[in-house]
């Protein structure tokens, strides 16, 4: 008899992956005003993984809770998550003014907040995206596991349940690695885990009735102090044209000319 799963899926609203990012005129961050935003693609994979666990039936899933920290517009991604199958969601609101003053919330702050949510909501499985496409930190899942003292399996490409243990196949530098870990645990998702479903229009309309709780950082009493300060953001230097060489001898000559060998 395996324990029922109570899943937490934290998601992030980021600049849409198809948009070409631009540096803002103050050179301190990426321009986000008026730019299309959507759910972090890795988070879509997490939601899909959670919903498929519920559809599989064993072990039973009690509920799927989606959570997002960010400005008021985050409700859009939470609604999408609920349309994909999450049961309810929590929106921890940070105003734009607060972000301007203190800076974006950092992975450690997010991890501490998630720890608090896990304890409050009595979760036994947290599925996160491996990283968000705006800061590419790849830290939150790991930090959360550390704070909670739970096992973690990151960059998951396959998740299987065996009684109270979870067998996770991870994508690592050298290939794949399979870990077996008891619940409760933290899993972060990678691209080959699944193909997220479309949120169909009837589901979006039904999801409007699902519960969306609004809270603030203060409600959790979490230290969300910033430890990093972004000094400057610049575009990478423009790509220089290349040159063609006739054969290997030509290449060696060219490399000698450039002083490389």
């Amino acid at each position, binding site marked *: 008899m395996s324990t029922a799963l109570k899943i937490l899926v934290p998601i992030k609203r980021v600049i849409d992956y198809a948009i070409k990012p631009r540096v803002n005129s103050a050179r301190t961050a990426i321009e986000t005003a*008026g730019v299309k935003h959507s759910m972090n693609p890795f988070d879509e994979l997490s939601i899909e993984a959670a919903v498929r666990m519920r559809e599989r039936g064993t072990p039973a899933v009690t509920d799927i809770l989606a959570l997002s920290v960010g400005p008021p517009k985050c409700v859009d991604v939470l609604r999408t998550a609920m349309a994909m199958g999450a049961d309810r969601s929590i929106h921890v609101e940070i105003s734009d003014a607060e972000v301007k003053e203190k800076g974006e919330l950092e992975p450690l702050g997010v991890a501490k907040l998630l720890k608090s949510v896990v304890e409050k909501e009595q979760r036994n499985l947290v599925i996160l995206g491996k990283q968000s496409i705006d800061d590419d930190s790849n830290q939150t899942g790991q930090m959360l596991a550390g704070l909670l003292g739970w096992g973690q399996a990151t960059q998951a490409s396959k998740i299987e349940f065996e009684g109270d243990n979870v067998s996770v196949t991870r994508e690592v530098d050298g290939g794949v690695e399979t870990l077996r870990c008891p619940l409760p645990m933290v899993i972060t998702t990678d691209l080959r885990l699944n193909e997220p479903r479309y949120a*169909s*229009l009837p589901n979006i309309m039904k999801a409007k009735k699902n519960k969306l709780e609004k809270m603030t950082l203060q409600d959790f009493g979490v230290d969300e102090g910033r430890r990093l300060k972004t000094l400057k953001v610049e575009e990478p230097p423009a790509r220089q044209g290349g040159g063609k060489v006739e054969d290997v001898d030509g290449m060696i000559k060219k490399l000698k000319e450039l002083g490389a060998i």
Partner: protein
Amino acid sequence: MASRWPVASLARTRLTTPGIFSRPSRRAYSHYTPARRRCLLQQQTPNCLLTHRKAFSTTPWRRFADVDDSFDPRQQDRETDEVDVCIVGGGPAGLSAAIRLKQLANEAGKDDFRVLLIEKAGELGAHILSGNVIESSAVDELLPNWNDTENPSRFEHATPATKDKMRFLRKNSAIPIPAPPQMKNHGNYIISLNQFCKWLGERAEEVGVEVYPGFAASEVLYSKMDGSVMGVATNDLGISRSGKPKASFERGMEFHARVTLFAEGCHGSLTKQIIKKFDLRRDSQSQTYGLGLKEVWEVKPESFRKGEIVHTMGYPLPSSTYGGGWLYHFGDNLVSLGLVVGLDYPNPWLSPYGEFQKMKHHPIYKSVIQGGKCISYGARALNEGGFQSIPKCAFPGGALIGDTAGFLNVPKIKGTHTAMRSGMLAAQAAYTALIASPNMDNGTVFLFNYEDALRKSSIWSELKQVRNMRPSFHSWLGLYGGIMYSGLEAYIFRGKTPWTLKHKGPGDYAATKLASECPKIEYPKPDNEISFDILTSVSRTGTNHEEDQPVHLQVEDWEAHKNDQYPKYKGIENRFCPAGVYEYVEDANKELGVKFQINAQNCIHCKTCDIKAPAQDINWQTPQGGRDPTTP
């Protein structure tokens, strides 16, 4: 798929044993709408009972199941939802109609009056493209405090127009020409229509409109009783390139409404079908179009003159081709510039994209954008037909509003205010009609009041006054004749002439001459600072359709199309498409040495191919929504 059906139905009859309800052949019902199919199936059952034959199973997919028992999810019934008014398209017309409807309903205390708006772009405003200099008359009426500094939810990004300039361009010079009175922009605002629609969308949600971006209406639903429009259906998602459903398949959804307003913008795909079905152009001329290509640049502060509006004619277009350029300074060191090319251009070697890149090198444009950065690109067809091309706008069960009907004022180059006003008038008429006859039994709604209101409104008088200006460019005097006559109209006649000039021929597609009859045009290579190649520009549109979906640009037979069209026009599709969708790739194995290829993923939804294809054999349909271009 089609070839499987006769076999399947034959096999089915063989397999059915007496006592099993003989299912209707799937082929016979395939072309009916699901509603009609359901109705017909329901009619079948009583007969079955009379002859004492029992239904083997009553579920729809049992009936439609194949011989090999594979269930085709595309045959599933769609979920339906009933609303009071359904609006297709979230541009200024659609949003204005939605807001007005809900304003009227809220005033009367009818909170349960449902207005639903669907939009194919992933976000409101993402697919709309315009210069844009807006005349605020319509929005002043709809939302009076839209620009009021006291209003916390005012529209913050309107740049008041300061200076107007009109120039006639030769290759290296710019001759000032007087601007007709219609083109004085004092009191108008330069905006990004993308941002404006986003803002209108927020106002719409505030008053209770249900807005669903990311869902394209792909099918019109007709009532089985009288053939009137009873709503729309969104497209199925998750179909692979070969047409088979994938694991992520989601059936579309139907919206049933007593009034459906179509606000798809210029040359809407569903509007095209409706105009044909109800013969809405029986008393008007066919629509003529232009293609507008636009870029937004971030320029150096020294070159920026906030609020300045420049319009140009002449270079680079030949005198046989109507068109002109614009350059607006707005926002924070941002410049919107572009070129409109009349799609009745005769030379198939002309490439509107190439002309646009050429135009940017003219000193009047180059001096502003030099040293700046191009941040965005887009293109969209626009209406040039004006008064003569306005179709009948009301039909049983709905109406056409905005550019999809065609209310753009060509000399003013403004269509936003007329689009919004038409939306508001349709909303008023729809609301009155629905309140007067609240039950379905009172029959189909026909918005006579809308047609009347249009005729009494400023839209009519405005378009009537300038009706002769655009057609005056069709004479053998070309550009010069047009400018001279338009000058007469603007300053002296003001539309009060007894004559109404006609547009040329059956449509823009017919104006194209053969490639052999016209001089070939060579376009200079892009320098990557001012001008760019087409694929770089497409990457700036943010377009990214899912690759594994059916090609949404429907050409029946690619080989036949190529064999027919290539010898005559030598690849005109490659030149008129501003996104490089159509290609004639060299292929020694194929007839004529080329292969016709459609790169549907690049499409930026401009609709030019549907308009300009000389044989009118390209049918633009909505692709799967969501991942798609974002216009500046």
